[in-house]
């Protein structure tokens, strides 16, 4: 058979970018925006993991004598009406806010993927029923639905996560449904069946992973929304309760003092919230390029 290979001998040997790490490095180098997004993500993750250990003050300790101080070298972001250090509270809150958003997105990703895969692969009445259920969720104003869920289930962090997850499920389910649907009769799915895979295995092992690149964009956008959503719930008094540091509550509490000139109470948590959402939104393209094997040329 050797003589037949002549016209197509492989060209160059393995090139850079063949390994996963090399590929990630390439994606980061290729797009400075992605690099910036990953740097900011690293910063936020650092805050979430090490923040509570590193902050200069106890975020819950009150100090009546130093209430409502403007930003200074002692208190970078100033102090609030109870004399608590705003900087420490903003940094410590990172862990809670990221946990809520990541947990909520992971939950909706998992549930949405399962529902969407089933609907997209088998179709028929199953597809119709699932789609109508999702339409029902979408028909509510989503934030109002989340408020309703938290109000009904009770005011806890878990319930914020569940509420945020529920309102995000339709986005994932629809995306996965479409991606699975166009591939269910693809040649590689048929070939997998000939290789002795059951329908379920073909779906889970061969078809679903191909839906990942667009999912990654959705995930990163959703992480931003989820943070906003959690902060929004806390802002209106549902969800995380004072005195726990959380960006939404801090903005809500600080808003009362803007009129009297103490702008730092609301500005810094709001800024952090904005930066976090910004980071996740920028992250999408980079994540997609990393999970897409076709980018590995």
């Amino acid at each position, binding site marked *: 058979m050797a003589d*037949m290979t002549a016209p197509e001998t*492989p060209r160059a040997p393995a090139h850079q970018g063949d390994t996963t790490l090399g590929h990630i490095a390439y994606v980061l180098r290729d797009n400075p925006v992605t690099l910036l997004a990953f740097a900011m993500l690293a910063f936020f993750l650092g805050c979430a993991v090490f923040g509570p250990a590193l902050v200069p003050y106890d975020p819950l300790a009150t100090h009546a004598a130093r209430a409502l101080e403007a930003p200074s070298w002692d208190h970078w972001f100033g102090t609030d009406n109870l004399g608590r250090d705003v900087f420490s509270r903003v940094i410590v809150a990172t862990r809670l806010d990221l946990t809520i958003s990541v947990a909520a997105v992971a939950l909706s990703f998992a549930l949405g993927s399962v529902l969407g895969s089933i609907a997209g692969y088998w179709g028929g009445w199953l597809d119709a029923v699932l789609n109508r259920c999702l339409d029902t969720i979408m028909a509510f104003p989503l934030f109002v639905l989340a408020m309703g869920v938290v109000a009904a289930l009770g005011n806890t962090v878990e319930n914020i996560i569940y509420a945020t997850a529920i309102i995000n499920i339709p986005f994932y389910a629809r995306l996965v449904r479409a991606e699975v649907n166009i591939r269910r009769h693809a040649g590689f799915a*048929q*070939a997998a069946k000939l*290789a*002795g895979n059951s329908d379920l295995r073909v779906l889970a092992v061969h078809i679903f992973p191909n839906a990942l690149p667009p999912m990654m964009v959705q995930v990163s956008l959703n992480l931003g929304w989820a943070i906003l959503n959690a902060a929004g719930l806390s802002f209106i008094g549902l969800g995380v309760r004072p005195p726990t540091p959380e960006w939404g509550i801090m903005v809500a509490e600080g808003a009362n003092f803007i009129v009297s000139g103490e702008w730092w109470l609301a500005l810094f948590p709001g800024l952090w919230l904005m930066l976090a959402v910004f980071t996740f939104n920028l992250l999408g393209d980079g994540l997609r390029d990393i999970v897409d094997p076709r980018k590995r040329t």
Partner: protein
Amino acid sequence: MLSINNLSVAFKTRKGEVNAVRGISLNVAKGETLGIVGESGSGKSVTSYALMRILDAGGEIRTGDVTYSGIDLRAASEKDMRDIRGREISMIFQNPRAALNPIRRVGHQIEDVLIRHAQATRQDAKEKAIAALKAVKINDAAARYDAYPFELSGGMCQRIVIAIALACKPRLLIADEPTTGLDITTQKAVMDLVGDLAKARGMGMILITHDLGLASQYCDRIVVMKDGLIVEEDVPAQLFTNPQHAYTRKLVDATPRLGASLRTLLPPEARRPEPKLRVQSNPLLEVRDLVKTYPGKSGPVQAVKGISFDINAGQSLGLVGESGSGKSTTSEMIVRLQDPSSGNIIFDRQDIAATPSARFMRHPMRRDIQMVFQDATDSLNPRGTAAAAIAEPLARIDGMRGSKLSARVAELAELVGLPQPLLSRFPHQLSGGQKARVGIARAIALEPKLLILDEPTAALDVSIQAIVLNLLVDLRAQMGMSYLFVSHDLNVVRLLCDEVLVMKQGDIVDRGPTAQVMDTPSHPYTRALIEAAPQPPKSVAA
């Protein structure tokens, strides 16, 4: 009329710059048809995109002049180019469905180009669009004016695309693989139409194709391109009977044609004696009264209308037909991806149609019937490596693991002539021929008794097709497999099959030993198919 002088085009990619076209010169005279023939990656399409100035992002004309009737197309402003495109130089693209806007009526799409180039006013546009439809011989043009592309067949869509291209009576037409994906009789109809129109209007034409036979039939002059260079230029008869360049000779040799045998498709140095094939007289597969009915809008549609045939052990049976003939449905039912509506599929004396396709993966005979799919790219999971694709059936059905598995994968790669370093690559990093080999290696991994080949070479260049066909006949001899070879290309079926079935609209209309069916066709449909196949001029190369 058109002259290209020392044109070179480069593309920027992740791995640096790629020179797609490296200094080519050619001329097209008024009313002349020039064929550009080459395999994928030869730069033939890029040349036409460059002269129309519609290169993809990252592509750039590096050197050279393109002059059309005294206009320097390289220096022309984008606004001038917009006037030239469609008005002076028109283009027909490869995939007619992709070239038409799916949500607009075809008549309106013709009007767009007429109005854009001030060939019609809003008042008389409809009339002129219908006239354009009539010019491409569309029956009942007034009714078709209101059709959407999805309501039309592939051949019809290509006629619409031609109508759009010719609506403004351009003086030069570029046809980029205009008949790829069309049935062989449709191909003939479309090419005859384009040829006649070009002649009637005194239009110059550039026909870009990978099919030397097609080019020789319709072109006055052919240039052969390879790796961005023109290697040879001549009139078709000369090119075939006396190819000067080694590459042209290889292409001419590899084109399946009357009187050629499998081995003569290969370059002389790769030819080896044909293997001995043993065909037994006991049937391996017996198909009896197979029917497949789909529910349709206006009542059930019978895709397969009760066909019966046998395949003997070690035999290679050709299944020929055009799209819609039911040949793919038949092969999918035999390979147990679809359930027949009624009828029996008796394999090795056991009715396998009795087991529903959804449960067939656990059937002990799953390993004995495998398939090589039509589109090698589509049949490989884009997220899996070549090795993973070949290993899949071994791991799932044989439960093979670890070093034993990788050794077997390496052995199979060797068998199909796939170099070992390519095993760790993803499908998009492999060429078409390499992907076809991966698909074949996966299908023969379990040493099936029956291999169904669904146009395995349809997407391949002729020289790669020649290699794959030879590989298939070698494998058949080595492993004693039976083949069901599904194809629309009679020239290929002739080379590979002992017997042939001709299907039309779900029925077998003709059958018999290949030579008999091909040389003395008894059924008019078979005769039409054979006549539609482009036949290159007799060559002395073989």
